[in-house]
């Protein structure tokens, strides 16, 4: 399962390259996304009410398991542990807050210049400053994400994303759509991780987690 998560980023990158305006139009035409994988048609769709209940049940069950697991820490406990080792995540948060405030200030100035129809050179200067701040913020955010990668909250989010994929992935069999996995176990041992990652990325475009 971990390997699937490691590969997910690469899949999303390659998907971004494959997607163009025409494909985007297709993605939004309804609340389902069909795609082809190894010459077979698949689709993901929004969960129905009973599937949402199943998701909720599995999420709560996983939460209970994670709470009992002594090797997994809550984000706040992880932050305390890092602090003892000299890594201060609160400082990273403060830096992000400061950058956000600076960015907002620049955005308001830029917005005002646009509304006053000012010279494009002025707009460009603000834009460059905003890009610089965002690049800096991205570096700090990546640092923070890496440090908190193994937090309980993150594990639970990844698990929920997997369950949504498990519940929403359908395959076309003799012209009819049917759920691809009859059980969570079958999903977890499924070998084609490329298909699972593709379906996972698409299902995340359909619903919020």
């Amino acid at each position, binding site marked *: 399962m971990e390997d699937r998560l490691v590969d997910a980023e690469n899949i999303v990158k390659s998907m971004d390259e494959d997607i163009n305006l025409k494909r985007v139009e297709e993605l939004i035409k309804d609340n389902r996304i069909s795609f082809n994988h190894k010459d077979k048609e698949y689709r993901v769709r929004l969960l129905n009410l009973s599937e949402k209940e199943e998701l909720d049940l599995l999420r709560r069950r996983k939460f209970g398991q994670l709470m009992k697991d002594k090797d997994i820490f809550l984000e706040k406990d992880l932050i305390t542990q890092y602090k003892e080792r000299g890594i201060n995540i609160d400082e990273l948060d403060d830096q992000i807050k400061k950058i956000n405030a600076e960015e907002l200030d620049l955005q308001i100035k830029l*917005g005002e210049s646009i*509304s006053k129809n000012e010279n494009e050179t002025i707009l460009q200067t603000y834009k460059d400053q905003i890009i610089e701040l965002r690049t800096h913020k991205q570096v700090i955010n990546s640092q923070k994400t890496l440090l908190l990668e193994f937090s309980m909250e993150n594990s639970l989010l990844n698990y929920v994303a997997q369950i949504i994929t498990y519940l929403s992935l359908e395959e076309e069999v003799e012209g009819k759509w049917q759920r691809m996995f009859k059980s969570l176990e079958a999903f977890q041992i499924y070998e084609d991780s490329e298909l699972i990652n593709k379906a996972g990325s698409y299902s995340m475009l359909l619903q919020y987690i």
Partner: protein
Amino acid sequence: MNIYSLLRELAKSVRAQNLFVAAKEVNGVYLFHNKVDFSKLQEIYLSQLYNYDSINRDIVLDNISKHVTDNEIYTDAYLIYKRKSIKKTIKDNKKSDVNLVVGKKISFPTKKV
């Protein structure tokens, strides 16, 4: 270009904006096949359609810079500024309403018989 940027590109296109206006004004014109249960992508697209619709009106009516739709940074900055200005206007109006209530006696014109 990532999918969310492409979604914005689509939302600001003339074709999408025309369809959006038609869907608002003409009965029986729909943007999506589904009429309920919108996906996350559809919700984001809808909000971008509204954003670009309001910006296009501001370009014509308020004479704001046409560069506003050149890139996402300009568009977002303008929308943030606009929201902030609207909030400020509402706040100022509320203040003046209170003064009006507490303040002077208002004489209404009387009808001559």
